[in-house]
Each structure stands twice: as structure tokens, then as C-alpha cells.
């Protein structure tokens, strides 16, 4: 499996975890962060089966969701599913790193969660 190539940022002053990057902490406004990687599996916070996709997708639909990793990193990703019946809020997902989109002929990698 490919490495999950996401970097989150933990504020050195107050511990707030940020993803994506901010130049100042969302809580205490300090500017020093420790880089951390998302750890373990992820809990599904919310999701949608999205039809009417934007330019660049050759599929009828995709599943999109937001999930929280075991170390508190929250991130959006695609979900490998065929039906909403396979998904439930709060369920555990396994993160993988795969092609999520092709832009100008270039493969774009990102999070793909597996139920």
C-alpha cells in the first residue's frame, strides 16, 4: 500500500491539530507547529454520494466523506463504496492512498477510505 502522504500540524503552544496548514493557530494564534502524520484507522464523521460530478471525472458518482483518525487528524477523502447502505456515521474506515482524480493528464493522489 502506498504511504498516506498527508501532513497535519500540531500547535506547539496549545496542541490544536490542524489540517490543512494554517500560518497561525486557529485557537491561540501562535505560529510554531509540529508536523504529524495521521495515525491508525479513521471514524466516519459524515459522507455523501455525489452525482453530477465536475469536469475531469468519468464516473457516475463518487462517495465523499470526512473522517477523524485515531490521533485526532480530520480529513476529507473519497470512500470506496457502491451504495449508501454500506456506510454509517461513526463506522471505522481503513485509510488508503490512491489516485482520486486526473487533472490535465496527471494522476492526483489522495485519501481513499475503505469500509
Amino acid at each position, binding site marked *: 500500500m502506498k504511504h498516506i502522504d498527508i501532513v497535519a500540524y500540531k500547535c506547539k503552544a496549545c496542541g490544536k491539530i490542524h489540517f490543512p496548514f494554517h500560518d497561525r493557530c486557529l485557537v491561540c494564534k501562535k505560529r510554531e507547529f509540529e508536523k504529524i502524520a495521521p495515525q491508525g484507522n479513521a471514524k466516519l464523521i459524515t*459522507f*455523501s*454520494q455525489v*452525482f453530477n460530478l465536475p*469536469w475531469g471525472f468519468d464516473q457516475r458518482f*463518487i462517495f465523499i466523506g470526512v473522517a477523524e483518525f485515531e490521533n485526532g487528524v480530520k480529513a*476529507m477523502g473519497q470512500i470506496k463504496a457502491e451504495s449508501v447502505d454500506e456506510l454509517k456515521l461513526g463506522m471505522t474506515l481503513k485509510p488508503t492512498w490512491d489516485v482520486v*482524480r486526473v487533472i490535465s493528464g496527471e494522476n492526483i493522489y489522495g485519501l481513499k477510505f475503505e469500509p
Partner: protein
Amino acid sequence: MRPVAIVGAGMIPFGRRDDDNLMDMLAYASLNALDDAGLGDKGVNAVYVANMGAGMLNHQMSVASALVDRLSLMPAAADAIENGPASGASAIKNGLFAVASGYCDLVLVVGGEKMRDVSGWRATDFVASMTHPTAEYIYGVTLPGMAGMFTRLYMEKYGVTREQLVQVAIKNQEMGALNPYAHVESRITHEGIVDSWHSRVNNPPTADPLRLYDVCPVSDGAAAVILCPLDMAKQFEKIPIVIAGFGQATDTHTLQERDDPTDLKAVTLASQQALEMAKLKPSDISVAELHDAFTILEIAESEHVGFFPKGEGGKAVEAGKTKLGGQIPINVSGGLKARGHPVGATGVAQVVDIVWQLRHELPQERQVQNAVNGLTVNFGGFGNNVLSFVLRRGEQ
């Protein structure tokens, strides 16, 4: 700071306007507002043009400079304002500040968007470009997708039902059918989008749990207003509409970084600021235009503005409290759901519709009786930049 009034308002019908380019639409709406104010061949000091995507959609930039030339308004100051789907309200804010500060006496604000120049999937991609480029956009999330995820959480937390969303859609299309400026002028029935065997074809899923009739159309359109100091307003023919309150607030770019993704903090803050400035309570508002790009947003915003407690907005829709003649008529224009959503125009169109309501000049079937105070919410991104105005009927 000087009190500011709206003395002219104009719009063009929203929809698919194949015969007009962006500049045509901006010019027609501007001329309608100038004529409404009775300005004839007079000029203005400044022009603010709200537009989100002329560069991407129409291959045209510097639209404000182009518009003053088209309307022969030189040497008026001219600026284009881009703030996503809240561009319209942001442009009015700039006009408000210019007049209130004393820098300008007469300002034209016009918002417009020409979205039907491109295919549906290009337009969807254009709107999705508002999302975070590396944390959201790359995954193919659309704005309906963001709304679908929000709806699922809102249903889970507050018990909003599919039926309540359906009632918003039916109400707003009912009102849109009466509005000659609306993109969608057809009524829908419960049977047609929920009950019948063909409802699954009529109303397919767009971004589960949202379906087609939960989502606003992609529209062309433009709307405009003329602003001046309140003490100059008596020089104009129409009843002045005072900008009694204004508020604006922002929130995190990504939904995932909000402590509670169902909490539309920027809507609460912006509307509170506007109401406090106007020295009014939510219960003092006669009519509201809320940013119902998705049916869930009308319900959620009605709660965040304070018209109803959290969890009660959906029930209020079912009880008819948001209909014309109800406790607080919301989106009597048909809202974004039926009037349409040419993104740069919407914030201005909301204000134009409230101006018409407060002047009491709409046909009876669309007029809120004795309307005195109106409120707008213009929702940028997915709630990360929100503006609200409170307008009050002035004295002639």
C-alpha cells in the same frame, strides 16, 4: 457615518439567456436601476460590480472598467468585487461604505453572472474551485456534495426530515412561479417529486441525502441598486429603503475544521451584527431572503438568524410559518431555489427583492402585507464568508 438609502433597484429575468453576454446583462440591470431611481442621463460617483467567475467562465476580466465604458459613466470610480457566491452582498457593502463615509454621494452596485456559457460539469467545477485546493477540491467534492454532508449531520443532530426539505422546495417553487424574474417558473407537487412511481426519475439523488429538487439551478442573471445618503433620498421619486444594519463574518475554509460542522457561526454573527446595528430583534423582521442554494440551508439559516430555535426550523416550514402570510415569510421571491443562482448576482438580487417588498410595490400574491423591515443572508463558500443586511422602509 451617514445613513444610507437605496433609491433605485433593478433586475433582469434570471435563467438561460443565450442571447446576452455578461456585459449585456450587467448593463440591462444597471439601466433598470438607474431608470428606477429616475437618474436619466445623470452619472454616479462610483460603480461596484459583483462577479465571481467572468475570468473562468466568459474569458473576460476587469468587468467594472468595461461596464462604466458600456454605460458611459466615466470618470466614475469602478471596481469588481469577488467574494464567491457572496460577491453581491460584498459589493453592496463597498457601496454602503463609500456613501456612509462621505466619499461618494451616488453609487451604482450591480451583480451578474453568465454561467450557462459553459457545460454543466464545467460550471460545477468552477463553483467547486471555492473549496480548499488540496484538502477538498482534489477529491471531486462539489458544493452540493458539501451540502449533502452538512444535511446528513443536520438531520442526525436536529431531526430535520426529508419531508421538511421537500416542503421548502415546493414552497419556493410555488413562489417562483409567481415571479417574472425567476429562472424556475414551474410549480412542483409532492406527488411529482416524492410519492409517484416516476418521482425517482423526476427527482434523482444529486448529493445524498439531497435530491435534484433540493438544489438551486445554474443561472444567468443580473441585479442592481443605487445608493445615496439618506438625506439626499427625498430628491428621488421612490420611497427610500434604508440600509439599517449590516454584518459580515467568516469561518474556516474547510468544513472538517469546524468544532461543530452543523454550526453556521458566520451566519449567526453576521445577522446578529446587522440586527444589532438596526436595533431590531429577529421577531421585528417582516420578510427575509435567505441563501437557499440547497433546501437545508433555508432551514439552517432560519435557525441561525434566530427566527426559530435550533431544531425548529424544519417544523416551522411544515407548519407554514415561512410561507407568505406566515410568521416570517422567507424567500417570497422563490429564493435561489427558484429565482436561480447566478452567483455574482444573488446577493444584489436578494436586496432588490426586499426593496420591492418594503416599497409595497409587488403584486398582491407576492406582497408581504405592511412589510417594514427585511433581512438578507448571502452565504459565501460553504458558510465561510457570510453577509447580512437589515433594510427598513423609509419615509418619503
